[in-house]
């Protein structure tokens, strides 16, 4: 929590997955030893996008869906800065979908952290691009009738430099993986599975524990075809570093 201006009154619901992500991000910054004055968080709009407010960092809290282009502009203007873009699934994969695609292609050296709770929080419970088929909500009383957006397989199809998935409930593993993403040279995506205790009664803490597993020691993240197969698994969702592009890893 931000020490300079204590904010006990965060905008999040009690039990929100964002609290764990905030703690994880603080740990990542501390353990890497990043100087706050050369660290910039860039966020869009939504509950997840408020996270930088509670950190001791520079931030650019921009427009809904537009965190990535602003992050690219910041990094290009001053490559000495460490740039972390973070926002929710609606902001990143819906409103900002085009930027998601092209920032992967551009491969700017920055980290994108997406709080993916498969629902819209701030606008009160509507479906997000990652909501599962059949998800009932005020705007689709009969349930969502679209395929959910798969950020990891999209990213791998675009030969993303680094793609990982973590679960917010596991802070230790999340911190380890996000650290690797931040230190990775090139564009890195970390999709964080996160429960929404208010609006998503399906994808709960328990649901995530039961429906995720860590990729084993023998998993080769440099194998793009295997990575793609892992990214489309939907019985149980794999966690860990799903894919790294070989040529970027050498540097």
């Amino acid at each position: 929590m931000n020490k300079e201006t204590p904010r006990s009154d965060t905008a999040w619901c009690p039990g929100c997955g964002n609290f764990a992500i905030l703690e994880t991000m603080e740990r990542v910054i501390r353990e890497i030893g990043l100087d706050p004055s050369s660290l910039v968080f860039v966020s869009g709009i939504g509950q997840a996008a408020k996270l930088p407010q509670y950190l001791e960092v520079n931030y650019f809290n921009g427009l809904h869906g537009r965190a990535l282009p602003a992050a690219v502009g910041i990094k290009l203007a001053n490559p000495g800065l460490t740039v972390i873009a973070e926002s929710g699934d609606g902001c990143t994969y819906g409103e900002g979908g085009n930027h998601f695609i092209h920032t992967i292609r551009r491969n700017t050296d920055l980290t994108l952290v997406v709080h993916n709770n498969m629902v819209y929080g701030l606008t009160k419970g509507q479906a997000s691009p990652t909501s599962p088929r059949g998800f009932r909500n005020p705007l689709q009383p009969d349930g969502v009738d679209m395929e959910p957006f798969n950020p990891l397989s999209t990213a791998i199809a675009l030969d993303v430099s680094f793609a990982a998935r973590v679960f917010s409930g596991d802070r230790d593993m999340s911190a380890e993986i996000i650290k690797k993403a931040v230190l990775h040279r090139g564009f890195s995506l970390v999709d964080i599975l996160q429960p929404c205790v208010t609006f998503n009664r399906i994808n709960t803490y328990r649901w995530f524990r039961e429906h995720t597993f860590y990729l084993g020691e023998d998993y080769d993240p440099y194998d793009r075809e295997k990575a793609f197969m892992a990214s489309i698994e939907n019985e149980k969702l794999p966690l860990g570093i799903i894919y790294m592009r070989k040529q970027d890893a050498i540097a």
Partner: protein
Amino acid sequence: MDDISILITGQAGQGIQTVETLLSDIFLGQGYHVFATKEYMSRVRGGSNSTGLRVSSRPVRACTDRIDILLALDREILKRISDRISASTLVIGETGQCRSGIMENVDFRAIASKIGNPVFSNVVATGVILSLLEIDPAVPSRHMESVFGRKGADIVGKNLKALEEGYREGAGIKGRVSPPVPDRPDGKRKGILVNGSQAIGMGAIAGGCNFISAYPMSPSTGVFTYLAGKGREESIVTEQAEDEISAINMVLGASYAGARAMANTSGGGFALMEEGVSLAGMAEIPVVIHIAQRPGPATGLPTRTEQGDLNLALYSGHGEFPRVILAPGTIEEGISLSKRAFDLASSYQSPVFILTDQYYLDSYYDIASLPVIEKKAYGEGVVRTKKGYKRYLLTENGISPRGIPGYGEGLVRIDSDEHDEDGFITEDMDTRKRMVEKRWKKLDTMKKEAPEPGFFGDREYRILLVGWGSTYHIIREAMERTGIGGLGFLHFSQLYPLGGDVIKYLERAEKVIGIENNLTGQFADLIARETGFMIGRRITKYNGLPFSVEEMKELLLKEIK
């Protein structure tokens, strides 16, 4: 003759651009003044395009309707410009569909094909013109090597042959008719040809621009291309974005991080950027936005001209925040205003617009030399932050010291939500009120520093013309040509906020005429909004073309009667 007007027509891909470049370089080298402008269709090949060239021993800087020599590389365009062909127009080339003028049918294609390829047609045509205008053949021969050298000796040789054939055709024409020839210039002069796109680009470089992001869109692309070409030499990051929304947000990110950054687009693309303009207003991020106007609504006429987006710039972005809008009238002013835009954006930490249009950007003329402007140092206007830095510190004039991340010990927090002095989100109503007033207060400084409009003509005017941006030279030349006293001209290159005592100028006139290249007279409306003075008489044009000098002269004469 005082000046002669040459129109070259052809399909896209026929190389009329090469003819224009060759002719203007050669005439400039001979000491002539040159003005050129183009009109073209929105396609890559075919269609019918034209480029107009004025050559004179006196400065020429505006487009005319009159055509002294028409060089027709294809017959399609003749229909579109038939009104402009008079009995004295010398028409050379594909005269097939021509109804008036002095016809000299020349089959450029056949001549070029004999040399080896119809592609040489344009150089044959160049030779014809140079022959008619009595330019020593040794002069263009020297240009063949510099223009075509990289394509190899064979191509240079064939172009020399094409030039020779052109001179032979020209000699034949001179035997039959006496072509118009411009008065000889009094001597060699040094001058350089600069078009509007280059002027805006040069000014940006002088203003310290080191970041530009854009999505290509006619007619704005020339500025982007110019800066991309200078990127390495001048250390400018040039990034082609996936869309205009991305472009403006990249620019804002770069500016937050300390760059002197620019967005570049046309009306439709700018419409996509509007939320970003609002963010610049809220987060107080300096940004220069060049809008190259073309006729709308929607896709409109992509390659034509209009001054139709003043209101778009003036009212763009939701919410209330100050801005500055500039519109250069001359090439020299394009350079100085584009530079000034960066200084203003930096000192007011607000959006600053440069409004140009297709006519302005695609026209060029010779200027004596480039103005000497000291290039801005990067980081100018930025403070080194201390611990506890407040990005939105409340100050007397609403302008807070601007810190950037990574420079000093402070943290730089900017927010699109309403925020407190630290940049934290707030919903406190008192803070909201103070912040709205803080942002708006910057307009006072903008007003104080706004320059007066330029005044030209008779100080004892009865009739006052009011124009802005690219109509400058057209109105000035038309005024001179009327030969009538009592005419004054107020030209605005800063449209908002207005500077100087504008109302005084307006009230002294018996009649005020607003002249705009749009339908409604948007600037006249703005003057009414700002001063309470309603300009009732408005001369407007909105068919996609600029006013011509002759047209403007006739319109003025009608008003004076």
